């Protein structure tokens, strides 16, 4: 039955990919959404199934067949639902189906063939993502890992007629390739160390080892895996592909580049929590990198003008939060934030999509404003999302973010906590900058319109100019927006901390997934949860205090944004003029792309052109080939003399052979 969860979307992909162009939009889109819903239902059922069990054995593992068996390497195609992957599949299928529904309206202007292609990609992505989270061992996870990479490439470059889209797709693919390389190395290292690639076996094997005090094999392995994660989840230094990925259709950005795929790295770390816990060095690196990414992305997000880019950078920084949580060992908090973030970030992206849709592809927030009255649904849902991400109680973002910050503080990383706080304030600020610039004030048209950046979606059906009356999100989109808004409000309530009299069910639910599956895992998990609660109990006052601080910070950020971008617009320009270099620096994203280009891309280009192509390939390889041919030719011209065509010559040589063989047997 577990197999059905990824197989249903795959079936949808097959149908849409093969005879999609002959199907009308309603059929292909409906089919795609339907299979997603079906697999959502199945996921819910299976989660129910494991939820019904005692804490210890909340897991179903389903072996389909043995995929590879060579030597002592044995890899099964086995799917596993435990508490962790349960959360993931719910998020993926649930939000995924919402986004499918949304897309049926959003992509409606495409031709039938394109429409079907889009949905086939989307389904393929969903099935690969599900394989990723359901896979019970590294290779299977890697299949999903690569598959989602492929789909993200295909979907970023969906409008392949547009060069920027193609470039973005290629960039995403190449950057991910770097991470995947490290990931593969990590897998090899694991196999070399433990002789297996099954998550459970690795965890139980690791749990017998002591945590590595110095930088040893475990640290190296985990570090390699983490580099893979940075590639997939857009962390420093491999985050550069994510902002460009916004070239893809907005729902894609919402599903792949905000809600699901980019969280794969976080999930991977959570999946191997035991392994990472035994490598403190790596954990520290993870935490630091996460915090740094969060801060950096936040600062960049502060000045970006493309609505989707702002959201992209906020995604990066939220992912940074998650990695921070993972790094400080608060896996539960990290996954919690992953889960809440999926809701409100998807909501925000879809809202921005609605805006762009309404404005026929206008993405520059300087050209927006005053949409509050014209797009009420979009407006309200968007605001809810913004409040949620800003971390205002009692919305989803608040609980998860504060759990992360609290854990960070408790684990004793005060500096990281400070960074987190600043990022939180920044988050609130740039999010509400976005809100105010988009929805308050009145329409502005001065800035150059970025029409071409979304050329396809500017539909012929919308003939009238952007100045005229705009209509709000069509029902399908509205449905998705509203559901997600409710989610963003309520999603956090399953993780209410004890400080506020909650039980943090999610925490206890996830606990067994992060502990080794040794004998009596149940008891262990229980104790872990218990002592977690105890710890929480001891820190309740502190926690409350921190909450207050961060909430105040968020509120302050919002007020600041209101003050600057609604009351006194001049301040922004003045600030930009005052601190021109900083502004330019931020506007150009710290010139990271340029640096990479200068430091890596150009040298590699030159090396491969001059060295590999002109030097190695032409001279050595071709030379070798031609040389071989020449040798064969010359030797053949020599050998040809042997073939006189005269029978007796052949017989003579045979005769010689006979004499030689006889001589060998008689005298040698």
């Amino acid at each position, binding site marked *: 039955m577990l197999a059905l969860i990824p197989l249903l979307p795959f079936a949808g992909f097959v149908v849409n990919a093969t005879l999609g162009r002959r199907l009308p939009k309603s059929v292909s889109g409906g089919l795609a959404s339907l299979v997603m819903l079906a697999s959502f239902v199945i996921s819910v059922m299976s989660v129910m199934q494991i939820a019904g069990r005692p804490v210890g054995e909340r897991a179903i593992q389903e072996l389909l067949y043995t995929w590879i068996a060579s030597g002592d390497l044995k890899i099964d195609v086995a799917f596993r639902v435990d508490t962790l992957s349960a959360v993931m599949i719910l998020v993926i299928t649930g939000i995924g189906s919402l986004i499918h529904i949304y897309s049926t309206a959003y992509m409606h202007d495409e031709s039938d063939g394109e429409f079907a292609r889009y949905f086939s990609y989307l389904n393929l992505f969903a099935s690969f993502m599900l394989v990723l989270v359901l896979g019970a061992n590294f290779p299977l996870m890697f299949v999903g890992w690569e598959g989602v990479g492929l789909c993200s490439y295909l979907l970023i470059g969906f409008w392949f007629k547009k060069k920027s889209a193609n470039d973005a797709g290629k960039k995403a693919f190449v950057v991910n390739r770097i991470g995947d390389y490290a990931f593969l190395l990590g897998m090899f290292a694991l196999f070399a160390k433990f002789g297996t690639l099954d998550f459970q076996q690795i965890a139980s094997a690791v749990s017998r080892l002591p945590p590595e005090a110095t930088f040893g094999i475990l640290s190296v392995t985990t570090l390699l895996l983490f580099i893979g994660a940075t590639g997939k989840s857009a962390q420093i230094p491999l985050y550069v592909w994510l902002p460009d990925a916004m070239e893809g259709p907005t729902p894609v950005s919402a599903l792949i580049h905000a809600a699901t795929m980019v969280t794969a790295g976080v999930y991977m770390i959570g999946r191997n929590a035991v392994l990472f816990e035994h490598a403190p060095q790596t954990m520290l690196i993870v935490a630091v990198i996460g915090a740094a990414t969060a801060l950096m992305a936040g600062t960049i997000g502060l000045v970006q003008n493309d609505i989707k880019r702002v959201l992209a950078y906020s995604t990066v920084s939220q992912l940074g939060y998650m990695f921070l949580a993972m790094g400080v060992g608060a896996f539960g908090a990290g996954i919690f934030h992953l889960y809440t973030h999926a809701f409100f970030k998807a909501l925000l992206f879809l809202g921005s999509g609605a805006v762009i849709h309404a404005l026929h592809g206008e993405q520059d927030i300087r050209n927006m404003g005053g949409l509050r009255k014209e797009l009420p649904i979009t407006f309200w849902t968007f605001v809810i999302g913004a409040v949620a991400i800003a971390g205002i109680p009692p919305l989803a973002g608040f609980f998860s973010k504060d759990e992360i910050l609290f854990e960070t503080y408790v684990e004793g990383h005060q500096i990281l906590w400070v960074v987190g706080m600043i990022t939180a304030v920044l988050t609130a600020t740039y999010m509400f900058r976005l809100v105010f610039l988009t929805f308050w004030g009145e329409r502005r048209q001065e800035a150059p319109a970025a029409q071409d950046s979304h050329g396809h979606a500017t539909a012929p059906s919308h003939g009238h100019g952007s100045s005229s009356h705009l209509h709000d999100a069509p029902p399908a989109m509205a449905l998705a927006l509203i559901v997600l808004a409710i989610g963003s409000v309520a999603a956090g309530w399953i993780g209410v901390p004890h400080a506020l009299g909650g039980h943090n069910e999610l925490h206890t639910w996830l606990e067994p997934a992060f502990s080794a599956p040794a004998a009596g895992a149940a008891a262990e998990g229980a104790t872990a949860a218990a002592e977690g609660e105890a710890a929480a109990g001891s820190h309740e006052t502190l926690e409350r205090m921190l909450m207050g601080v961060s909430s105040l910070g968020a509120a302050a950020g919002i007020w600041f944004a209101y003050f600057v971008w609604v009351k006194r617009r001049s301040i922004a320009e003045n600030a930009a003029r005052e601190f021109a270099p900083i502004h330019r620096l931020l506007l150009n994203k710290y010139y990271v792309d340029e640096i990479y280009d200068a430091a890596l891309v150009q040298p590699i280009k030159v090396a491969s052109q001059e060295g590999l192509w002109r030097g190695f390939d032409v001279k050595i390889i071709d030379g070798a080939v031609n040389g071989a041919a020449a040798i064969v030719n010359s030797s053949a011209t020599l050998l040809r003399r042997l073939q006189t065509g005269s029978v*007796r010559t052949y017989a003579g040589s045979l*005769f010689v052979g*006979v*004499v030689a063989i006889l001589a060998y047997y*008689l005298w040698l």
Partner: protein
Amino acid sequence: MPEIITFYLFAALTVVASLLVIGQRNPMYSVMLLIVSFGGLSGLYIQLEAPFVAVAQIIIYAGAIMVLFLFVVMLLNAPKEDAADWDRTHPLRQPGVTRWGTVLAGLLIVQLTTALLAVREFNTPVGAQSDASTVNSVHDMGRSIFTRHTFAFEATSLLILVAMVGAVVLARREGDQ
């Protein structure tokens, strides 16, 4: 004593006939002489108490294969080979080649003699079978052909089939179907 005489009789017959076969310009005579040498051989087979092989030798070789040769010789009305181009184009007639050939032949003879001197101890037969049991021996032969040598047998049958088809294809004149 008589068997010595018969042996040398048949041996001489065989050898002389064979020598004449290759010393002969006229293929017709060669064929006939070869039949004679086969006759000698089958006599030797009888002396080796393999009468079945002897008769088969006559039936298959002399009776069938040689008739085939004869048939072809008559069909082509084969020309006597002329001595003229013997010396011209024969690759082994060029002096150098000839010298090497003789050297090789000498070597071969030396080797064979040394090899043959090594089988001295083998002079009395193991389990000599009297020809009264020829029929049994035929039985045994058949049995072991169809049991121990099954593969060889099948392979040979396949070979025969292929040869038959090949002969038909080759000998067919181009054009006529």
